[in-house]
């Protein structure tokens, strides 16, 4: 859909992996494993199955390597697979929950998960990550996907459009709406950033700017 003219740092390894070179595929896994795990966690609200999902993403990628033609960056293609895997997991989970509904949430809920975590003495980084992932979980799927791909995974608009198979204008529109809906959900974290200044929020992935 959007042929990417930029050089792909994974091009050589992907070509070898597509030809069945397991060492090349292993190199790709090591390079992208962290992104895959974080994608699965951020898209599932910290689901306990996130690590299994991350593994399944690579299994699907391996089995489909012959179909990777290099029209897009390898990581864009990998993210498209990730979205499909996660979507399938959610559909399956929804069917299971219809048959076996989860017990009702605790009365105090997640109104201020970060504050509660801090009071309990938990690691602040863990609390922030959980707070972000839970806020993301409250977005509709289409909005969550674009904002995770952009702000958590660091893909640019072209890559996001390619992964989602939508126009760049749609990416921009969904990004705007997603961030607007997240503002009240992330209120506790916004307050913490204001207090702690630059001590939080420096560990995010580097952005690729077009």
């Amino acid at each position, binding site marked *: 859909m959007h042929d990417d003219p930029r050089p792909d740092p994974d091009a050589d390894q992907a070509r070898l992996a597509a030809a069945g070179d397991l060492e090349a595929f292993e190199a790709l896994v090591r390079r992208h494993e962290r992104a895959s795990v974080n994608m699965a966690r951020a898209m599932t609200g910290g689901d306990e199955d996130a690590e299994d999902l991350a593994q399944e993403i690579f299994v699907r990628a391996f089995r489909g390597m012959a179909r990777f033609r290099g029209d897009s960056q390898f990581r864009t293609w990998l993210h498209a697979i990730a979205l499909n895997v996660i979507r399938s997991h959610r559909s399956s989970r929804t069917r299971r929950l219809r048959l076996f509904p989860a017990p009702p949430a605790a009365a105090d809920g997640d109104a201020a998960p970060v504050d509660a975590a801090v009071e309990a003495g938990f690691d602040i980084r863990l609390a922030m990550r959980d707070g972000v992932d839970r806020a993301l979980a409250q977005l509709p799927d289409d909005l969550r996907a674009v904002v995770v791909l952009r702000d958590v995974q660091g893909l640019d608009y072209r890559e996001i459009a390619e992964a989602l198979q939508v126009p760049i204008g749609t990416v921009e529109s969904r990004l705007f709406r997603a*961030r607007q809906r997240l503002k009240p959900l992330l209120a506790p974290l916004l307050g913490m950033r204001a207090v702690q200044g630059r001590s939080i929020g420096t560990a995010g992935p580097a952005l690729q700017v077009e």
Partner: protein
Amino acid sequence: MDRCQNAHVWMTRDADGVLDARDRALLDDHTAGCESCRQAMAAQAAVAAVLRGRPPIDAPPFFTARVLAAVAEPPSWFGLAEWRTWTWRLVPVAAALFVIAAFVDGRTDRTSAPATVSSTPVRTAVASTDTRPESVLWDADATQDQVLLTVLTGRRQAASEDSRHE
């Protein structure tokens, strides 16, 4: 409202550091007179900053080794988690088998066969030693129901069972 919609696009790009100088001037000009867009612009930047500051998690130990072990395993033919996918993929196969069975049944001398009132072919009892689920695909005696049940359950239905009764 159209101007605000344009501004929404500009402020999104601004939060991502990809707003060009011309659009920045237009955005500044608009937000100077639009309080709601000023607030929206601040929200875009603040939320993006929090999300980008989300502490990433490392892949668990031996993650790559587990992936390589998983890809070394042959794919499961009738994984229950993918049963819908396989059901749809096997529909044309099942349809082709049904047509073949109906064709063969139509050409078979049925004078000694028991009378039936249904268009479903009568199966003769077949003792099969192949219990693999995928063997149902090349078993000419398998009915459409057998194929579907095998797909849904992941187990080959007993080939010796005769589902047709007088």
